[in-house]
């Protein structure tokens, strides 16, 4: 067994923030198990990325390099990392829980006879791993059993990128064997869905509406509250899926990330995909009929009640206060 391995991703030519969080998780795991942490970067040209990682407290950085890894494909990444991990036989592998990792890490683990523990929010003595269940209403504690490598991916924001310790590491190159014919999918360059005309990222106040509104006809009561506050209107995914508000107003992992002074969540239960998009908000208010809704975990102020009564009352109270 060769310790802990962290697989890092790049963003705009640099190590992505969530990858540093994965390194921090790897270092936490190292503290729990006494094993050394190594890092892997994957691509066609990884020199710069590897140099960036080598300034941190990891034992070694491996550049997993092949011309067929220039763009991400599940087939290419699975093959390359399968070969690396078959030769290294890690005790644990830590990934950032990104859309890319979700696309290949389950297959990679399965190919090695393992099951990924995905979207982990905490690690404790054992080691045991915590992840959310039932849309955030429950936490589950998972343990890897038997021999072999334990694969985990860590949720964005669960570990602190700034907790990564500095150091120096040796850099080596690993050249996997990949044939062009083994890559069965052909991805395009990425593109934006539609012109973004709403920049919720710089909004000072956001009133956000979710599934609890039940009907598109009821949206005006939330719009009136937003208008009274001088706030932008946002939404959780189901509202945009139904076409009740345009996609560009969606907040969460697949939409915009926001950090307003005031975030007022109306009828939003608070699934993790939504929370990651708004947890940087300064003050969070939640209005929901279910006292067990996970949104209250993230809220500074909460009102348990019928939004069709609470929201109009709040609109009136805001108008009065502003007079």
């Amino acid at each position, binding site marked *: 067994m060769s310790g802990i391995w962290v697989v890092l991703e790049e963003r705009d030519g640099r190590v992505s923030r969530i990858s540093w969080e994965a390194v921090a998780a790897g270092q936490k795991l190292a503290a729990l198990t006494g094993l050394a942490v190594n890092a892997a970067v994957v691509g066609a040209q990884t020199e710069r990325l590897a140099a960036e990682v080598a300034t941190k407290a990891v034992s070694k950085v491996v550049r997993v390099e092949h011309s067929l890894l220039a763009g991400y494909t599940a087939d290419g990444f699975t093959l390359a990392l399968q070969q690396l991990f078959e030769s290294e036989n890690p005790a644990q592998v830590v990934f950032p829980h990104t859309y890319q990792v979700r696309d290949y890490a389950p297959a990679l*683990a399965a190919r090695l006879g393992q099951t990924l523990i995905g979207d982990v929010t905490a690690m404790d003595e054992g080691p045991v791993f915590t992840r959310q269940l039932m849309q955030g209403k429950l936490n589950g504690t998972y343990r890897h*059993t038997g021999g072999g490598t334990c694969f985990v991916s860590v949720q964005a924001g669960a570990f602190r990128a700034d907790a990564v310790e500095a150091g120096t590491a040796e850099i080596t190159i690993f050249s996997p064997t990949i044939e062009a014919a083994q890559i069965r*999918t052909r*991805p395009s360059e990425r593109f934006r869905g539609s012109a973004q005309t709403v920049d919720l990222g710089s909004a000072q106040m956001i009133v956000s509406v979710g599934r609890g509104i039940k009907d598109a006809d009821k949206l005006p009561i939330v719009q009136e509250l937003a208008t009274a506050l001088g706030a932008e209107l946002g939404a959780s995914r*189901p509202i945009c899926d139904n076409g009740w508000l345009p996609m560009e107003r969606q907040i969460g992992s697949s939409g915009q990330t926001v950090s307003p002074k005031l975030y007022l969540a109306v009828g939003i239960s608070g699934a993790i995909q939504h929370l990651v998009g708004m947890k940087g908000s300064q003050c969070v208010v939640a209005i929901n009929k279910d006292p067990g809704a996970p949104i209250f975990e993230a809220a*500074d*102020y909460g009102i348990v009640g019928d939004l069709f009564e*609470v929201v109009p009352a709040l609109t009136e109270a*805001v108008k009065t206060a502003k007079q």
Partner: protein
Amino acid sequence: MKIIVAIKQVPERDAQVRIEAAGKWIEEAGLQWALNESDAYALEEALQLKEKHGGEVVVVSAGPERVGSTIRESLAKGADRAIHIDSADLGNRDALGVARLLAAAVKPENPDLVLTGLQSDDLGLGQTGVILAELLGLPHASLILHVEKTESGLTVKRELEEGWFQTVELPTPAVLTIQSGGNKLRYATLMGIKKAKTKEVRVVAASELAPDSAPVVVLERVAIPTKQKSTQMLGGSAKEAAAALVEKLKFEARVL
């Protein structure tokens, strides 16, 4: 085109969650059950592809007897037939174990396309489709919003983070995991519900498909999350709570 859709029955979204005495899972007695949301979109995509290109839509689902109601609902919406993998202790299998069951049921069907939802609303693992592709030796793409059949296979629209997308071309047979929101969901018609009663549902015991093997990953216990933040709950009538909130936002949080 022969399309298999793997679906899961999950507790209703609004279900009140109570932890069972052993602390390993929730109390299932008294729960209402529903078709997992992204699986409903996978089924819709399959039905639309069949309407455009012809073929057959086969639903496969693993679970105890109660799963039958969700299977019937899918047949009522337009699926042609179903395979029910009968298993009373699915919770003892990890994602790989469940995918092995599905793979064993899917393989002899030789489908052109296998669809699953992106992830389940209960366990939320988001792995079954991707592992299924690996076990079947098929190419896959995940987080798919739109599927187009081409001469050589498929062109699909894949969601990336923060409002970005890409298209992916892949040959068939293939496995896709479907994201919510790509299509408008249909309801079962009265005629559909009537027809569903005569459609074939083949029940196969899980033990016949893939022997129980020890799971690699074990869910040891579940718990209600402890609060990270101290939330001030504002009570009273709607009017009182609203007035109290405005006071707090103005003088305590100072954001108004």
